[in-house]
């Protein structure tokens, strides 16, 4: 079985993700039957985070696991499945906002640069930015209402 983990390990550009998933003890989970949809930040995405961010997270496994599980959704969803879908609930518990218009496939503030990479236990969409849970105050602020 070629799992999500196998694809990440065997393809260039995911070394930071693999290191993080390993450190967070999530390898077994992502090798399980699932299925899962993973929004996988590539190395360039992780490199955009200010220095020290990953250091602190790798020192604190539960906190790292939380950020990583935010990138995983239960179920297998291709890009086509997600057309018209406004949001998904991540394994972390928080919502991920989606926006698919023509060729653009956006997940929160990240752009999917390579969708629909099939694994036996799910599907990977490669993203260009590490996504972070949006706090409660975010939507009211975007709507212009004072809170």
């Amino acid at each position, binding site marked *: 079985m070629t799992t999500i983990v196998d694809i990440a390990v065997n393809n260039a550009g995911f070394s930071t993700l693999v290191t993080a998933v390993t450190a967070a003890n999530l390898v077994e989970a992502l090798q399980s039957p699932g299925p899962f949809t993973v929004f996988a930040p590539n190395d360039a995405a992780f490199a955009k*985070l*200010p220095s*020290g*961010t990953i250091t602190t997270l790798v020192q604190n496994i539960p*906190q790292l696991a*939380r950020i990583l599980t935010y990138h995983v959704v239960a179920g297998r969803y291709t890009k086509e499945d997600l057309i018209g879908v406004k949001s998904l609930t991540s394994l972390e518990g928080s919502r991920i906002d989606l926006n698919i218009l023509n060729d653009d496939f956006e997940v929160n*503030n990240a752009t999917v640069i390579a969708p629909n990479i099939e694994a036996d236990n799910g599907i990977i969409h490669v993203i260009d930015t590490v996504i972070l849970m949006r706090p409660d105050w975010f939507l009211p602020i*975007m709507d*212009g209402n004072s809170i």
Partner: protein
Amino acid sequence: MTTTLTGTALPPSKHEFADIIHRLEAGGSMLPDTKENLMQIIGLYKAYAVPMDFYWRNLLYIAERVFLEPLPFFKYFLPTEYLELQNHYAGDNADLRIWRGTGSVHPELKAFMEKGETMKMPKIFHHLWHDRINMEFAEECMRAMLWHRGMGGQFDPYLDTDEYKANADKAIRAYFKFNPVMMGLYQLFPEMFLEQVRQMSYYSNLGLFWEVMAPVFFEMSDLYDEGKISTVPEAMNFLVNGIFAIAGRPIYHHVHIRGEVYELIPKSKGFTWLYEAAFPYVEAVFYRTSPFRGTKSYNAQAGQVPLEQKDFYFGILYADVFPVGTAGIPPTLLMQDMLHFLPTYLIEYYSQHCRGQDDMLIQLGISFQRSMYNVTSAVIQAGRSAFLYPLDDRNPEHLWANRHYFEGQLNRFSNPNYGMNKAARLEMIQNQEYR
């Protein structure tokens, strides 16, 4: 992160604070970029960080050791163990070294704790004379977080779960194991004891939050002295990078009872500095806090205290520093603390303005307000970077999203309800003569 937009720049904003919106979009702060502003804010960051070094240590001491002591007469008597406790973000053994200085108590704080404003004498006399660090200010910030609750993150809802209640019950029983009177009271008033434990958890939250902020401010002050921070945006960006670097720091509450550790809130819950401490702190303390009790009058019929607690606007961003410079009011307690640790360049500066030595507390209070607007700007920019788009994004839709965000943030200072827009100091800090 300071960039100039070309080509895909948006048309001018129509917001009341359009100039400030454009400045934020160009990578700036709500505070104008002037040499004088930079000097004021850096000086205050340093003056704030020294008492903060006491606050975070004492907050953790109270949360972890004093805990449910019914008559905590000596809770401000910080033991050597906590003075020497290594800050996780300073010193040679730091998890992530933010400040190149020491991980134990700051030398200026140590010197002040010996002498105070008066002279070297036994601690009890310093305490009774109130010639000491005003820990009451830190407790007021903690209380603001406790009273407001619901300010976001997972820490707060966790305090109402069965799991937390079971953890609290275990700790309460252990703490009062040899105290039948308190155990009897616990049987009669279990909710009261649980609420006291929640308060202790907020002591821990705030202590862990400020443990990080102190080295950030110390490093900024050192970099300024070395000429490596020379603009307000650079100061803001240092804070933004610091916020990201430390975002994943765990937030927890461990209590030590007779040599055993009780994990009321374990690190394994995954609570983080950014979501469970920093954002709720900004919401509860920078914006809201509470009306000052005892010395200032509020006319409830005239709506001077909002009906809804979530609409409170008594934080530093709305503070009219002069009237609140009254003895005993928490911000004045902080101002008194900061007065002791002002860098020489600020003492000279304040001596030449307003009433010189006679109103230094007010002058520094206003500088402090400027510095906290800069911190708020860093939080806003960090939020933009984390949840939205780079300032030089080439997609106009992304730039519009950034603008909606900045405008939404500044709308909080334009809110006409209760006269919040008149109380907000955003406009006044644009003027260098606001002292």
